[in-house]
């Protein structure tokens, strides 16, 4: 499968005796929007946590663009171009948009042992561009993230991932706790990923949201993949049936 950007083979994970992931094999194809659905405890969060460097698999292989990789920390995942946007929000509310965009990857004018003076001009300029690129209209990059609505925050998180040229964007329940209008905005962001050639992995409880913005749907139950079909070849009823 040459068009797979991430392939996982026979991934297993045990949590203190519980077999949470039972040999998952899956290809994430370049530029597709993949919907990952399943009940609580089905293993989707475990799979995502392994890909984003939060946990490590006990067994199995992960390849990114054909190369076997080891993802030990969130930073490793980001360096491979895998960016994760969590439902609890990956923003610090007490900090400005510009500062949030560059957390952990701040441009510095010079640095010693990784610590250096921030290039604030560059941060301001690039954050304005990054926000505009995802069609998010915000007054100023100096606004605090705490002032933004839930949907706007997800927008900033997506802008951040785009800015750092991520190849795969994992959105973990991004529409939780959002109003209908805000949800539509986020679904719009996910659709927009495709045009930019970014692979989107959209995790949701809400089947309607998944069917609205994804090309392919993968359903998980009890640590295994139970369904993997193009959106056109399946229906909400069928997916509900296997879960």
């Amino acid at each position, binding site marked *: 499968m040459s068009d797979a950007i991430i392939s996982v083979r026979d991934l297993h994970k045990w949590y203190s005796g519980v077999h949470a992931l039972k040999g998952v094999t899956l290809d994430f194809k370049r530029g597709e929007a993949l919907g990952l659905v399943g009940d609580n405890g089905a293993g989707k969060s475990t799979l995502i946590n392994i890909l984003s460097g939060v946990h490590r698999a006990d067994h199995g292989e992960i390849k990114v663009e054909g190369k076997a990789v080891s993802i030990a920390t*969130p930073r490793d995942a980001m360096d491979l171009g895998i960016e994760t946007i969590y439902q609890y929000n*990956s923003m610090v509310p007490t900090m400005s948009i510009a500062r949030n965009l560059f*957390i952990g*990857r*701040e441009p510095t004018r010079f640095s010693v042992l990784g*610590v250096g*003076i*921030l290039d604030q001009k560059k941060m301001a300029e690039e954050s304005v561009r990054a926000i505009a690129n995802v069609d998010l209209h915000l007054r100023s990059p100096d606004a605090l993230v705490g002032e933004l*609505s839930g949907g706007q925050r997800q927008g900033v998180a997506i802008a951040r991932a785009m800015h750092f040229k991520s190849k795969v964007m994992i959105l973990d329940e991004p529409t939780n706790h959002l109003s209908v209008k805000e949800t539509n905005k986020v679904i719009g962001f996910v659709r927009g990923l495709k045009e930019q050639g970014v692979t989107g992995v959209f995790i949701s409880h809400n089947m309607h949201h998944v069917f609205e913005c994804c090309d392919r749907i993968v359903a998980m139950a009890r640590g295994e993949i139970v369904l993997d079909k193009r959106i056109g070849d399946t229906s909400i009823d069928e997916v509900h049936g296997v879960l």
Partner: protein
Amino acid sequence: MKRLFKTYLEKPELAGLILLVLLIILFQVRSHGVFLNADNLRGILGILPEAGLVAIGVTILMISGEFDLSVGSVFALMPMTMAVLMVHGWPFPLALLAGLLVSAAIGFINGYITIRFAIPSFITTLGMLFMARSLTVVVSGGFPPLLPADLPNWLFTSFVGPGNMFRMSFLWFAAIAVLTSLMLSRTNFGNWIKATGGFMPAAAAMGIPTARVKIVCFMLCSVLSGFAGMLQVLRLGSPLPSIGEGMELQAVASAVIGGASLLGGIGTVMGGIIGTTLIRVIDNGLVLSHVDANWFKFAIGFLTIFAVVANAWMRKRAKAIKMEG
């Protein structure tokens, strides 16, 4: 209202600053002009660096989301370590280095235990408060050692500047204040501190080594406290094992009066300094205004509660604003 919230989050020390100016005016009037005269100012500025440096460390640590109750004990242990070593013939620079290393080690232990065992830093550093104080008395053998006569007081405690207004310690304090303030606002490390204290899950998810960031803040806090203790010992001329008692709570009061949030993420070095100055000004101003000096602790206590209530209220307002938006 939105404006006010934003100003408050950007400049949480603003309220403290306004209060400071008002109190200075009040004391100046009540003391019939004695408060702001050169002699009195020299007195205040001479001791401000000691509490101020401790407050800087505690404030930065608080911004990173942690807490240190052991600063007062480190304040005593560091100069005691130096004094004992100098009695055994160590030269001043080496003793200074050893004292700073002991302080850094205590900060490291505080941070490592807090993070490794995921316990509240309140408990870790409360334990350290007793342990470091005990060590101070033990190493002194019960009798404060005599300091050698040839100490570099010119570098730390001598009066300098126009009208001999400042002690050298004030210059150290000013330089450290500027450096730490720049670190917090202008470097990527400062960004990590604020992110770690502001919302740790997000900071960790973005690849910030939050444990290391916190441990560095613990170490910085201890080193600044130890250094401040040395300044006091050089000023007093004797390493008493009891110095710095109660200082931990005054430092916390300074930080929160200066707008730092106990929950982390919010605060400035300047705020910690304003908080310390406010406490020193109240201490001094009450005496000059012929008010019973025993009201001092009452005033500090009242101010601390007032500051935190005001903070909580602002945060609640901020939440309400987000709902509307």
